[in-house]
């Protein structure tokens, strides 16, 4: 029987992997740390450093290494603290000395065109434009290179490109996978946060802390919460056979992603097994897992529901900025001053001329109301008459009397009671009422469609028809007219057991409807302009279909068949006192000066705008109040707890217990913050090395440690540990500035070296171990699509916002279980945005990005595959996208150039960012002419085909 070991690896590792055979042999026969590597060998791994002063560090240091015998046995180079060497060398010093030692000829510098193209793609993922090229070539100064680096690092497209590298590591996607593949609410905000973080060069240590524990920091800001979306990006089974296990699977995803992306450790195998010799015992795994066990679970119990309220919440955009609170306070103060000015005047009238004097004025607004329900009469199922609702019928079911706002009876509802009345309005109208409750309405605040709530005043009919209604969804008053997708809502926390005034207006002419809460217009929208002639009865306190009833009190429900003025609505909300009738009364009784004063007070009242703040939905960390005890889970089975564990760090990294401080806001345990601070610590031997290696990887095409997510035992050793350590130290000392690290790499001679083959060097170092040539590469999936869009000028560089939906072929949609509703639709402009902004739906991925090896959405992806498969050729040749872009490219060439030769030349220049030699232009021109004659085409047709050909050139999708 032949034993087969399958060939496999991420291909980008291949070259260094091959280089490493030598090292592997060394490593398999010697101890990496204390080994016999000689000082003369420049590739030697770091030796132990001289003893250092005692430290309280939780990491393995030289001083506590001896004590940590258990740990040291498995300690590899990457778990030894970064040591400041006697001689700090620059990258070029390292590089040149390596070449010299090996007798390799230094490469010449690449051509300016190659360099510019290389630089633009590495920094922004986009090609330089002809103008970029021209200005670069014309700049005679030596500074042009560094200036260009600065310009590109300052471009916001830098963050788009480098943000994508990070998204690969955290398996960012916008849906949950599994049967329903549900949308993760606002997952795009996390994507935008990452892009912004790169653009603002957020120090990398902060970058990590915010993702793990932004919510636990003393300083509050929306971004800090958005960053914790990191914890919610994984696949989530909405209908697991074993819900408890599913919650642990989810936690495992968080831990595994954290460890792989930030520390270069794969913890996965330690979840179930504790093999002898493994550096990560099971106990370490569960100690690490317990940092996350405070988080509220994504689902509770069986069924197919997901508890979104456990990880999604509405937060104000200006969270942490107390300006809003200040301005709200000052508004309240001013508002109540004006109010008391008004009420003082009215009180005076009342005291001197009697209460009755005011009643007529107070009721002015009610005079033309169609229905006024004050609930002062006892409940009745028959027609009732009262002073304020003459000849009006209403029915009540199981309602009770409560105590209304002014001490008079109210309508008391206990969750299944309601009142119906014949619908009194249909075109223009205003509905005003008071309510109070200490309970949440039906639904949740992630979906504020009024039809989902508990009824306040409801005129709903099933189906998409012009109906209307007002309801309480969770703790928000929501309302809408017509299309159920057009809805508005007021602020949250309406379940505070206080009386609130709600007023809803609707105009048939404009279709505008508005929602006022407590005298402030909170929201408006445009809905149906039809006459709302259905249903025949309105329901008060209950939704018609579904029968969700309010649990609380209602009072003073009034309908008008006109849109009340804001002055009238404010009057209602403060219980009377701002109408012309009131002013007139004061003028008549107290004198015109007093009337004038009152009018001014009222005017100022109207002018006072209540400060508003915008709330947005964020995926964020939320912890439970009582965190369950953590256990080892035997064989990874959630329902099989073993020994108790407490939060702590892996043995290979010191094995200390975590010191945890509960944040002062009391909303979380502080566990994640302890983990975050331990990771983002300059003494953590892995963090800086792991990220430095990644930055190197994306600049030079291949990482120094060929297994960027697996440092140490499970991975391969670095090709040049000293170099990595030097760079990592620089990185930490620069204040964890990724841009600074990039600057040092990009400005090096090594980065500018040619990729040209050299016979002699190839003989000495066939694997290019010492970087005697720059490694060219194929562009990534996103780079290819974005470049093609940019050639035609269609590329839309807009940043941020919800994902976009470029047109997908019907064949692709047909693979979804619900082909008709599987994908959205975006405008042409949005469809032409950079690929990072395409909505990432786990079960329906963009076919072109997939063909070119986009990152797997379900596992952290440290290095993209680099496959060559027929699908790629078929996509670039035959897809609708290629064809559309070829035509658009031809439009551009026709607009910008008047003759065929110039167009051909420009096409070649745009795709390669290099002026083609005249002879090459001639050759392509003759292809063009042959194409025309052989296939009987006109210039335009041939130009489109030529453009399509150009998109398919190897030169177009490869950089040197």
């Amino acid at each position, binding site marked *: 029987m032949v034993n087969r070991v399958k060939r496999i690896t991420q*291909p980008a590792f291949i070259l260094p992997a091959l280089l490493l055979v030598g090292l592997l042999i060394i490593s398999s026969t010697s101890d990496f740390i204390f080994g016999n590597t000689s000082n003369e060998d420049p590739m030697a791994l770091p030796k132990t450093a001289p003893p250092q002063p005692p430290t309280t560090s939780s990491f393995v240091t030289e001083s506590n290494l001896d004590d940590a015998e258990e740990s040291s046995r498995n300690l590899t180079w990457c778990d030894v603290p970064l040591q400041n060497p006697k001689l700090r060398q620059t990258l070029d010093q390292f590089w040149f000395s390596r070449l010299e030692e090996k007798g390799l000829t230094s490469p010449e510098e690449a051509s300016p065109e190659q360099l510019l193209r290389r630089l633009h793609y590495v920094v922004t993922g986009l090609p330089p434009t002809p103008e970029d090229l021209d200005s670069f070539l014309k700049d005679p100064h030596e500074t042009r290179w560094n200036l260009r680096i600065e310009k590109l690092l300052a471009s916001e497209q830098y963050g788009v490109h480098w943000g994508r590298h990070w998204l690969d590591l955290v398996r960012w996607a916008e849906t949950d996978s599994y*049967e329903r593949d549900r949308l993760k609410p606002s997952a795009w905000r996390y994507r935008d946060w990452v892009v912004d973080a790169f653009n603002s060069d957020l120090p990398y240590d902060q970058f990590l802390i915010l993702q793990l524990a932004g919510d636990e920091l003393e300083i509050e800001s929306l971004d800090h919460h958005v960053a914790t979306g990191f914890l919610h990006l994984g696949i989530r089974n*909405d209908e697991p056979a074993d819900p408890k296990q599913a919650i642990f699977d989810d936690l495992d995803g968080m831990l595994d992603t954290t460890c792989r992306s930030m520390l270069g450790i794969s913890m996965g195998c330690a979840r179930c097994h504790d093999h002898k010799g493994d550096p990560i015992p099971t106990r370490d795994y569960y100690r690490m897992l317990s940092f996350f066990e405070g988080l509220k679970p994504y689902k509770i119990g069986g069924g197919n529901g997901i508890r979104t309220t456990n990880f999604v919440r509405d937060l104000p955009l200006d969270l942490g900025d107390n300006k809003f609170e200040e301005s709200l306070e000052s508004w309240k103060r001013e508002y109540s001053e004006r109010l008391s000015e008004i009420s003082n005047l009215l009180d005076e009238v009342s005291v001197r001329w009697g209460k009755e004097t005011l009643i007529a004025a107070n009721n002015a607004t009610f005079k033309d109301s169609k229905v006024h329900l004050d609930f002062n009469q006892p409940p009745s199922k028959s027609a009732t008459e009262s002073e304020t609702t003459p000849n009006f019928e209403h029915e009540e079911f199981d309602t009770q009397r409560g105590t209304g706002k002014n001490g008079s009876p109210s309508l008391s509802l206990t969750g299944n009671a309601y009142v119906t009345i014949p619908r009194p309005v249909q075109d223009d109208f205003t509905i005003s009422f008071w309510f109070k409750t200490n309970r949440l309405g039906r639904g949740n605040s992630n979906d504020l469609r009024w039809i989902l709530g508990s009824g306040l005043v409801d005129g709903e009919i099933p189906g998409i028809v012009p109906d209307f209604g007002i309801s309480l969804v969770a703790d928000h008053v929501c309302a809408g007219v017509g299309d159920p997708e057009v809805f508005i809502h007021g602020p949250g926390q309406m379940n505070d057991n206080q009386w609130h005034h709600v007023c809803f207006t609707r105009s048939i002419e404009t279709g505008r409807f508005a929602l006022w809460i407590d005298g402030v217009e909170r929201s408006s929208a445009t809905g149906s302009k039809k006459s709302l002639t259905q249903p025949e009865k309105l329901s008060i306190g209950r939704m018609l279909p579904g029968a969700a009833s309010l649990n609380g009190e209602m009072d003073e429900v009034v309908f008008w068949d006109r849109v009340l003025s804001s002055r009238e609505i404010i009057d209602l909300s403060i219980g009377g006192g701002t109408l012309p009738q009131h002013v007139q009364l004061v003028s008549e009784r107290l004198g015109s000066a007093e009337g004038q004063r009152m009018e001014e007070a009222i005017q100022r009242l109207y002018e006072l705008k209540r400060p508003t703040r915008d709330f947005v939905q964020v995926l964020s960390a939320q912890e439970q109040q009582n965190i369950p005890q953590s256990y080892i889970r035997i064989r990874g089975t959630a329902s099989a707890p073993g020994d108790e564990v407490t939060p702590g760090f892996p043995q290979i990294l010191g094995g200390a217990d975590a010191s945890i401080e509960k944040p002062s806001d009391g909303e979380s345990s502080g566990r994640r913050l302890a983990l975050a601070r331990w990771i983002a610590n300059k003494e953590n031997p892995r963090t800086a090395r792991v990220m430095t290696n990644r930055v190197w990887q994306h600049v030079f095409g291949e990482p120094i440690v060929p297994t960027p997510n697996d440092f140490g035992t499970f991975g*391969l050793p670095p090709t040049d540990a000293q170099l990595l350590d030097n760079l990592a130290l620089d990185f930490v000392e620069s204040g964890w500035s990724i841009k600074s690290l990039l600057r040092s790499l990009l400005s090096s001679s090594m980065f500018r070296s040619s990729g040209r083959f050299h016979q002699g060097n*190839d003989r000495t170092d066939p694997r290019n171990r010492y970087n005697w040539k720059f490694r060219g590469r194929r562009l990534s999936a996103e780079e290819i699509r974005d470049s093609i869009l940019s050639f035609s000028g269609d590329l839309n560089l807009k940043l941020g916002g919800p994902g976009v939906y470029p047109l997908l072929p019907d064949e692709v949609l047909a693979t979804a279980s619900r082909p008709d509703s599987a994908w959205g639709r975006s405008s042409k402009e949005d469809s032409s945005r950079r690929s990072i902004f395409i909505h990432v739906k786990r079960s329906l991925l963009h076919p072109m990005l997939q063909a070119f090896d986009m990152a797997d959405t379900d596992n952290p992806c440290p290095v993209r*595959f680099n496959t060559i498969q027929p699908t790629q050729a078929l996509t670039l040749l035959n897809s609708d996208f290629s064809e559309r872009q070829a035509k658009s490219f031809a439009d551009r060439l026709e607009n910008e150039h008047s003759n065929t030769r110039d167009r051909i030349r420009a096409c070649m220049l745009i795709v390669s960012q290099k002026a083609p030699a005249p002879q090459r232009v001639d050759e392509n021109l003759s292809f063009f002419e042959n194409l025309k004659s052989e296939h009987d085409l006109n210039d335009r*047709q041939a130009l489109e*085909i030529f453009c399509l050909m150009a998109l398919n050139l190897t030169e177009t999708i490869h950089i040197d």
Partner: protein
Amino acid sequence: MSLDNSKDPAGQFCGRTRREFLWEAGAGFTSLALGGLLGQNFFAGQSLAADGLHSYASPLAPNPAMIAAKAKSVIFLFMYGGPSHVDTFDYKPKLYPLDGQNIEVKTFGRGGHRKTGRVVGPKWNFKPYGECGKYVSDLFPNVGSMVDDISFIHSMTADSPLHGSAMLMMNSGKVFSGAPCLGSWANYGLGSLNENLPGFVVMLDKTGGPISGAKNWSSGYMPAQYQGTVLRSEGVPILDLEPGQLLGGGVQRSVLDHLRAENEIHAAARVGNPDLAARIANYELAYQMQSSAPEAVDIDAEDEETKSLYGIDRGKTADFGRKCLMARRLVERGVRFIQIYSGGNHDDNNWDAHGDLKFNHDKHAGATDLPIAGLLKDLKRRGLLDETLVIWGGEFGRQPTAEYAHLTGRDHNSYGFTMWMAGGGVKGGTSIGSTDELGAEAVDKPLHVKNLHATVLQLMGLDPNRLSFFHAGLEEKLVGVEGAQPIWDAIA
């Protein structure tokens, strides 16, 4: 420390440690199609891999089998939604008289865990077929006629009775998404016998894909070559296979010739980069696929008798029949793994009979019985059945009891269900394992999805407990780290 953590002699390969070899051998990845397609002079001087030592190998080129192979190809007839075993192939005579009675029975399905339920007696009669006398229900009279070639596995179990995770499990062995599917593993292990066609092909129902869509044929953490290609039974079979408006009418060949000339100039200036040559070859491979794929699925080339055998001349069976016939043609052309879905979308568009069992199963069995039997017969008479493994089944079975108070529908059942295999080294006329007399739970020789997967790999000549892919620090296997035995009783 030592990277050579494998003390097992099996961990040695060509004098190197296992992991060294893994990393090194990956060099083959970027060089698809060079070996066979372009033996031209252009590459003669460069036909070594980047290490300067090894010649190129296509990752999809045929690999020698690890063990003696019995099956070259697999056709997996996926009855999405979960067919009821007690109404199809698992005869339960005692269930009929219990119809309508409430009994104690432990079930777990969409409706959660239950201890009692109302029995729904099987809605079809069973009768014996073939020399083996296997009882098959009236839903599958045509498949019944082939029982002597079939091995029935009645004691299947799965980890989940819920579609989302159960589908993933049946296709990839894991209840999580992100792992490669059975078809990916087969191609990864064996390579393709025909580079002009995809090695892993999926045909979907007209009503749409199964839930989780492309996750069911994803290559997960493996590269994209190994993911399933969706093949359509009508029109252009593969996405973007045919030239669009610009490259139609022969223009494409002119463009390809020019592209090749341009790309060769580009590559010539970049000696030492094998990728570039592979990319040139790749365009030729795509070009060949454009003619070979439509030819492969051109069932009009078949005679009327054959079409009739598959039920293509009958409305009800025409669609599934076309797909089965296409599958046979693909097998003849060396495609490794073909999956055909019976049922798509949601509710009664697939076998998920929660409401009216009779309506649902009459519909889906009616559409598939004749084509499946036709496929088996056709493979057999052409001598292909011996090397083609045909698998039938869904992600789970169904419960003996009703889901709702008044309907005949059954809820999901992963405690026990039936799948069958035919051809490809399978011992025909056998029945393995059994469920209890209600069909509620596997009692005799319970088998897991992993055992089924292990059997498939074993029959294809791959050692299920050795075939691994190094991913994130683990030697991942289709059958999981703990491994699984093939169902030896089913193997001839």
